[in-house]
């Protein structure tokens, strides 16, 4: 399954150009189970991309971990979820030198979260490549209570923190790595549009 194509939207909505090898430069690669396939495609196109790469697989997927190890990265790290992966990614970013490339693949939530960590560490956006694979579920921040709801697949949805019914916007915060959700019935309490599946 190739890089997902999303419908054109406002400038704020991130787009993902897909991964292309920058050669045997120092690299940090972060992928979930679906994104791992993009790393395999990347290494198939240019095996040298793995020579100085730290690969972090954010998934419980031993078979995928084995396939990534076969690509011969400098190191493969496994983490069951975001929270477990964050200290490791942050430590790699903080000790990285200028010229290090960041390759992200998988869900928008994963890519948004890690690219936000990377820009906080001072990494310029051009050093970050992303390829969307797998679920189109979004990581949404409630603009009212600031709580983040993971894996949102419907619009509107209920904020998992404050319970407001939120409209799924394409407005994206690069600083936080999340889309913004806004109360859908603020003007007319209780009048909520029909719930639909989010589309690409």
């Amino acid at each position, binding site marked *: 399954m190739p890089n997902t194509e999303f419908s054109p939207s406002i400038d704020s909505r991130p787009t993902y150009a897909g991964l292309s090898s*920058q050669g045997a*430069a120092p690299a940090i690669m972060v992928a979930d189970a679906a994104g791992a396939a993009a790393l395999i495609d990347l290494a198939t196109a240019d095996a040298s991309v793995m020579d100085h790469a730290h690969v972090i697989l954010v998934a419980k997927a031993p078979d995928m971990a084995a396939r990534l190890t076969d690509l011969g990265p400098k190191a493969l790290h496994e983490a069951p979820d975001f929270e477990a992966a964050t200290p490791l990614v942050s430590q790699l*970013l*903080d000790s*990285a*030198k*200028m*010229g*290090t*490339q960041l390759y992200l693949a998988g869900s928008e939530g994963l890519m948004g979260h890690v690219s936000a960590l990377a*820009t906080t*560490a*001072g*990494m*310029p*956006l*051009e*050093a970050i490549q992303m390829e969307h694979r797998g679920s189109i579920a979004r990581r949404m921040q409630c603009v009212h209570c600031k709580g983040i709801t993971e894996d949102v697949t419907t619009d509107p949805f209920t904020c998992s923190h404050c319970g407001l019914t939120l409209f799924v916007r394409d407005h994206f915060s690069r600083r936080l790595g999340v889309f913004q959700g806004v109360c859908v019935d603020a003007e007319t309490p209780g009048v909520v549009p029909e719930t639909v599946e989010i589309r690409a």
Partner: protein
Amino acid sequence: MKLALKVTEVEQLSPLVKRFRFEDPKGASLPVFSGGAHITVDMPEEDAIRRNSYSLISDPYDGTGYEIAVRREDRGRGGSLYMHTKVAEGDDITVSLPSNLFQLDLRAKKHVLIGGGIGITPFLSQLKQLEMEQKPFELHYAARSREEAAGLKLLQEAAHIHVHISEEGARMDLGAILDGQPMGTHVYTCGPDGLITAVADQTARLGWPKTAVHSEAFTAPPPGEPFEVVIASTGQTVTVKADQSLLEALEAAKVEIDSSCRGGACGRCHTKVTACDGRILHNDHWLSEGERAAQQDIMPCMSRFKGTRLELDL
């Protein structure tokens, strides 16, 4: 808006470089600025006003005065010679408000400043800002000889301030400076074109993104052969003298034109050419290679013309 100031200090820093300090005649506080900013100095002579831009070298947060350092260019258009020979303590002087085309990127985690020769000037204000904000930085200053290195008198001795004197065999090694810099480092270069190109090449080899690489190469407009331009809207012909820039000639002829940096860097005076029979001598850092070749655009603050007819869309 212009500031009418007094020259309060003139100091010879090196055989070719003088430092000037300007203050408000009544001691009023001047607008503060940001590191890397410049001012434009008016230099009135019998028949015209020449204007050059100079980087501010004083503390950006100190409103008691503005300081600049000017290198005498004997083969220039005469702006620096004017500063060196006609400006003395006690004189009145008119300058612009500061503006900045070479500001620090405050998203950076660390700043590497590389100044070659008189290109040290914008960094003198930047390093005061960096010290004040306690941001990590290192400064590299390259000069041919200790005698020519005017910046030495203005730099303190500190572990993160490195002086490279080529005459003493201490040539600057860009590879050693740039390789292994931590994530989030931005590099800024000011000096000769060769130095700016060398830093761009070295960072590209190391895989630095272009947005982390900054440079400023603005110089005073060069002199050249006199030429004429025609103003499309009025048919008026304006003559540009050998030691005058096209922008100065247009201003003297009261042709309305916007401008700011007067060094071919900001793009404000960008003017469309409606007819060109000859060759535009592009000296700016604004237009792209394609725009230069097409000869349909000109930056009047820096560029000149050789040929029979140049008509400007003014």
